[in-house]
């Protein structure tokens, strides 16, 4: 038995707006690079870099949007795969991948928490955070190798919370029949948040935000992104949450602030990890972007933060069947 997909993919206009908008933005980007290239305004290296980035977006955007349009299970499965890919990069960057037992438990934990999401079993979904933490802590004890215990358990729990328990909130939202416009709005807002901070920071400049953690981020960029993202989320949120308890200006502004803050903090969190290890990128999986985590870092904290904010006012799939499989 599956949750009835009563709402057709484009029933909510916001879904259509965002899909068309993203496609248009990609086409416009290609046109801009092409025209600027013809006019000789771009160096060969920069042009190559821009095409590479745009090309990656042309692959990434459908990979994010299509599962959301396809349905609930596809969305949660895609989030599970993303979590596993992120954890792989994190484990290889920190050295945790050499600890097979801990790594294996974290992978099981990421799968379990996404299975709980697909099952719409909220109790187990929440219980997996402390349970996973406990399993990771005890998994390597039978091997009687106390050297490095705190480090491997600490890194394992950190990884499980970020890419399992935390990120899976994004997939869990798909249990709501009205999830499509919401998830697309969050992805768009997180993306715009990054771009906004970059563009506004570059054009205004001014004092750095946390120069030792991330040398290129400025206070002006952070504040600019806060304003842009909050505005975007408030306007789109008004259409997404029309007729619900969340459809009040003050609450929607609150959601926008949470998305922008959590997005920027997630970015800085990854920067801190990279600085501490002494690496520039988390991987080389996406041409022009670095690793998968370098692209999706902002989503890690947005998922649980926005989930619980929205759940407080609206809830997720409260009228849907729960514990479908187990």
């Amino acid at each position: 038995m599956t949750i009835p997909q009563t709402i057709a993919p484009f029933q909510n206009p916001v879904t259509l707006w965002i899909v068309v908008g993203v496609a248009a933005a990609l086409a416009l980007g290609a046109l801009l690079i092409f025209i600027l290239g013809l006019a000789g305004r771009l160096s060969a290296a920069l042009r190559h870099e821009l095409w590479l980035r745009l090309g990656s977006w042309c692959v990434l955007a459908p990979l994010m949007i299509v599962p959301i349009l396809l349905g609930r299970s596809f969305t949660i499965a895609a989030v599970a795969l993303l979590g596993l890919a992120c954890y792989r990069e994190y484990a290889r960057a920190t050295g945790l991948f050499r600890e097979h037992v801990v790594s294996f438990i974290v992978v099981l934990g990421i799968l379990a928490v996404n299975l709980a999401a697909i099952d719409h079993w909220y109790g187990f979904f929440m219980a997996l955070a402390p349970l996973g933490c406990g399993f990771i802590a005890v998994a390597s004890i039978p091997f009687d190798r106390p050297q490095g215990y705190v480090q491997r358990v600490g890194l394992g729990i950190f990884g499980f919370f970020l890419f399992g328990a935390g990120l899976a909130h994004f997939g869990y939202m798909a249990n709501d029949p009205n999830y499509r416009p919401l998830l697309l709005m969050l992805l768009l807002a997180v993306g715009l948040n990054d771009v906004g901070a970059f563009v506004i920071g570059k054009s205004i400049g001014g004092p750095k935000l946390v120069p030792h953690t991330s040398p290129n981020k400025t206070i002006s960029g952070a504040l600019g992104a806060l304003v842009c993202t909050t505005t975007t989320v408030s306007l789109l949120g008004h259409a997404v949450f029309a007729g619900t308890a969340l459809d009040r200006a003050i609450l929607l502004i609150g959601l926008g602030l949470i998305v922008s803050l959590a997005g920027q903090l997630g970015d800085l969190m990854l920067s801190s990890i990279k600085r501490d290890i002494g690496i520039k990128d988390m991987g080389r999986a996406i041409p022009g972007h670095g690793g998968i985590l370098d692209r999706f870092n902002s989503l890690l904290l947005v998922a649980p933060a926005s989930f619980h904010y929205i759940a407080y006012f609206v809830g997720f799939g409260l009228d849907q069947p729960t514990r479908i499989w187990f």
Partner: protein
Amino acid sequence: MDWQFKPARDHALTPRERLASLKREGGLVSLACHWLWRQVIRFYLRAFHRLSVTGLGNLPEPPFVMVANHASHLDILALAAVLPARYLERVHPIAADDAFFSSFASSVFAAFAVNAFPLKRKAARPKDLALLRARLVEDRLIYILFPEGTRSRDGQMAPFKAGIGALLAASEVPVVPCFLAGAFAALPAHRHLPLPRPLRLSLGKPLSFAQSANDRAGWFAVAQTCESEVRRLEQDRIGLNQTDP
């Protein structure tokens, strides 16, 4: 091993570059692939070639290097298959890059199933040898090497090349000489499919080259010692066969 807060050696490589890199370090996925491959190969060698081993007790703790005669593609499989399962991810057969890493598909197979490291057959670069040497000790690896450089075309063992010396001279890492009998009869270089002939593997006592000079003369001496030890195992094997009733 105490905790090491260090990224994978291959961290800065693209997924494609990783496959044929000597910096490759496997994770859970490759471990699972090695394990599956090992199960299949062990079953095949036992059922089809009735592989038997003597001298398993001679194996030291990692790191160590196994050197053997080379008559067949079965050699790599047999030598890797007899090692204990707990060494699974440490075992790296050193394979010719032109044979095992020539295409994407063969590289995926060589990296994920066999766990092989590529080496240039004719001209191994000094920096590659230095990396192999360093990883052997630092990561406590196990290399499987065929110092003849290629598979025998007539079943006779060829002289060992000096490259093995560049890897091992003046190193504390023990070397286990191995002789595999029957591989030429089962799957010689000119055949595509194996025949059900028995394989018998002998492992000799570990050798140490800690005192060997790390220069050209020393390398040749190392190669010669390895070769004569493998030949001695061959003689012992022939002697065993003659005393069989």
